[in-house]
């Protein structure tokens, strides 16, 4: 698992395309900004890219689970297991860092920010590689 993060419009997806030789048009590329299709494991591909993780988090929050944090952890576990099942499988997760602004006025946004931050921390624990992208330059954290 490879987690790629950084601020909005910093070239994260572009960096992934370049590093992995894939494009947004590939069927193995899931775009959380444009679709609510989060069933990423239905894909037949060995390499899956999931962009817009923060929107996935919002989606999960809106499903009204008793504990969204736990639900997100379950997803992460499933993804991790999928990866372990075959040696050539790899999941690249791209998540925008949305946690460095002013505290949002409305509660939904606050929760969104919180759950996204926690989810990213969980992902970093599981991921083998972590990169922060800063205007196209990568900084490897793990």
């Amino acid at each position, binding site marked *: 698992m490879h987690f790629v993060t950084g601020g909005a419009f*910093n070239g994260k997806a572009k960096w992934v395309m370049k590093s992995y030789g894939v494009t947004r048009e590939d069927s193995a590329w899931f775009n959380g900004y444009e679709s609510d299709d989060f069933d990423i494991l239905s894909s037949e591909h060995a390499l899956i890219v999931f962009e817009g993780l923060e929107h996935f988090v919002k989606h999960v929050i809106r499903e009204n689970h008793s504990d969204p944090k736990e639900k997100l952890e379950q997803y992460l576990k499933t993804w991790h297991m999928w990866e372990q099942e075959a040696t050539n499988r790899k999941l690249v997760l791209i998540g925008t860092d949305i946690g460095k602004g002013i505290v*949002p006025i409305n509660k939904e*946004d606050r929760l969104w920010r919180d759950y996204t931050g926690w989810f990213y921390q969980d992902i970093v624990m599981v991921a083998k590689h972590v990169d922060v992208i800063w205007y196209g*330059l990568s900084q490897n954290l793990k």
Partner: protein
Amino acid sequence: MIIFITGGVRSGKSSFAETIAVYYGGQTPLHYIATSARQDDEMNDRIKRHQEARRVSRYRWKTWEHLRNIHELEQSIEPNRVILLDCLTNLLTNELFHGWESKRKQWLELNTRMNIYKKIMDGISMLGKKNILIVVSNEVNYGLPINDSGTYFFAQLLGNLHQGLVQKSDWVYQVEQGLPILRKGPHELEKQSIVF
């Protein structure tokens, strides 16, 4: 040569930029491109304070109040001088929202945005060709996404400009609490165009 400096608000990026300007061009007239629109007293006061600081400094500053179209200055500044552009966020604001009263929501058009991107990048390239150009900009894209279209496209364009500038620049610094962090030095020159 192009030197790109970013940082948060009040991070000390302007002082750092001025230090670099003096380092490279302290013996020559220094050129300052001022981009703030004189909209109200608060801005006027800030402009006055900055002008006064440059006037009393030991160095010769020439100020160009140029809110848009920075490429026009290429004719006016002799080569081998240091030019300080402070800052890119103002310049982009002035370009993106220029004439909005008559032409509503022009930023919704991809073509308009691409032209602005190109105009600014070309202006920077022109000024950086025969001179040392220092570009100062602001970090703004680290909060929750903003739904207002003008702000959204502003943030997107600024992010794209920063990506383009990081590639074009010889030196890139991020200033944190007054401390500059070198993000890119001349050893890794890599020039590529940005795809929208």
